[in-house]
């Protein structure tokens, strides 16, 4: 396989018209006879378009892109296609409303009219739970934020020793693309369970500590808990995340895990997608 990082600078210079005649012919000969190099060139071309559309090209490269690369009609068609795919993908992501503090009435209306797997009975139950003042995601203004803080703090306590001896249900999860294609991660929480322990298989790279953010898929952030520690087991690195069972209502979730490096910066580690069944 052609080394993309190594080939990229020359390919970019060619596409932006910055190679001299000899360099241009050398590139074109390579392109016509070497299938791996051809794929590398097409990858770099596509990424150049991505960077152009994302506003990541420096000014001089942007000018060359406009003046030289877009001189060809096929390139303009490629740009149009790339732009269409990008806009569709970003609209698709933006279509889910962000979770923001709202007045109680409006939030409940949104909750009742929104998408999801929750039948009317569960909705009614959740309304009662909300009125009783237990852990509910959408409350009015500052009170909603306080509830979220209490929830995050309570979950953080659950994940610190000494661990609760309450009935616990363990669920192993693997990160996106580390599991077999089509293998769904879904489970139902048994009725008599207080705590769900998500056993997250981590990539091999170790970090000082981890942070987990749980979101409803197509929704906003629910909570974040940090300062989590992974264990090294025979099966690899595992992160156990304990959650109150009652917060995992039947819907689709995304759990994003990031790791803290030795120099204090945070890096994305893995995303886990799972569905809680009725």
């Amino acid at each position, binding site marked *: *396989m052609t*080394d*993309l*990082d190594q080939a990229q600078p020359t390919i970019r210079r*060619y*596409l932006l018209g910055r190679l001299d005649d000899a360099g241009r*012919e050398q590139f*074109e*000969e390579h*392109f*016509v*006879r070497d*299938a791996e190099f*051809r*794929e590398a060139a*097409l*990858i770099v071309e*596509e*990424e150049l378009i*991505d960077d152009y559309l*994302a*506003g*990541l090209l420096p000014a001089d490269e942007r000018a060359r892109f406009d003046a*030289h*690369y877009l*001189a*060809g*009609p*096929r*390139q*303009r*068609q490629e740009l149009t*296609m790339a732009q*269409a*795919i*990008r806009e*569709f*993908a*970003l609209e*698709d*992501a933006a279509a889910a409303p962000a979770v923001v503090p709202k007045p109680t009435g409006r939030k409940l209306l949104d909750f009742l009219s929104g998408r999801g797997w929750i039948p009317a009975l569960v909705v009614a139950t959740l309304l009662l739970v909300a009125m009783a003042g237990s852990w509910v995601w959408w409350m009015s203004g500052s009170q909603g934020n306080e509830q979220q803080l209490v929830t995050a703090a309570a979950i953080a306590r659950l994940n610190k020793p000494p661990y609760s001896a309450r009935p616990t249900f363990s669920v192993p999860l693997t*990160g*996106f*693309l*580390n599991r077999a*294609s*089509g293998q769904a991660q879904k489970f139902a929480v048994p009725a008599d369970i207080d705590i769900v322990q998500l056993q997250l298989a981590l*990539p091999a*790279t170790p970090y000082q500590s981890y942070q987990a953010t749980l979101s409803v898929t197509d929704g906003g952030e629910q909570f974040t808990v940090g300062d989590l520690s992974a264990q090294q087991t025979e099966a690899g690195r595992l992160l156990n995340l304990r959650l109150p069972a009652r917060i995992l209502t039947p819907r689709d979730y995304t759990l994003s895990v990031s790791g803290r490096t030795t120099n204090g910066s945070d*890096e*994305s*580690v*893995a*995303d886990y*997608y799972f569905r809680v069944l009725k």
Partner: protein
Amino acid sequence: MKQEDFDKLLVWLHHDREQSGQKYEAIRESLIKIFSWRGYYDAEELADEVVNRVAAKTRELADNYVGDPALYFYGVAKKILLERERREQHQPLDPTMKMPDTATEPDEAEASARRYECLQKCLRELDADDRMLIMAYYQKSKQAKIDYRKTLARQFDMGTNALRVKVFRIRARLKTCIKKCLQTSPPSETN
């Protein structure tokens, strides 16, 4: 081009019919790309011109040529470009000459709507994991961080190059599906 010449051309490229067909397509597509990158609006016609000239010489090439046939095609392509440049240098510009109309759709709004429909259809046809990866790729790119590909690769526990290749191949399938859909979907009715 005579069919006999084309058949001989394929045999020259490879004795196996299927492999020769693949080689021929790869060479032709490469030439189209090169002509287009050089700014020529008639890239496909130029590539066909190259093929015609090479096909006409296949008998001699089969007996005498040593080396990668793709490089011979490229050599002919360079010659055609040189002829073209010389011709254009000696032709005075015609002030009444119009640039060829490269628009493929008469109505951009209609084209955009059809493209959108085809996008939806083709994204749905992607494997769920592939769809998720492509969506994550664009969402990460919106964060406008120069190293978003590295971040994504780390997140998916794969090398950066492997991620780039995977994204490219998924998008290639997507674009093929969209182009096919656009060719087969009827234009919407206008009032």
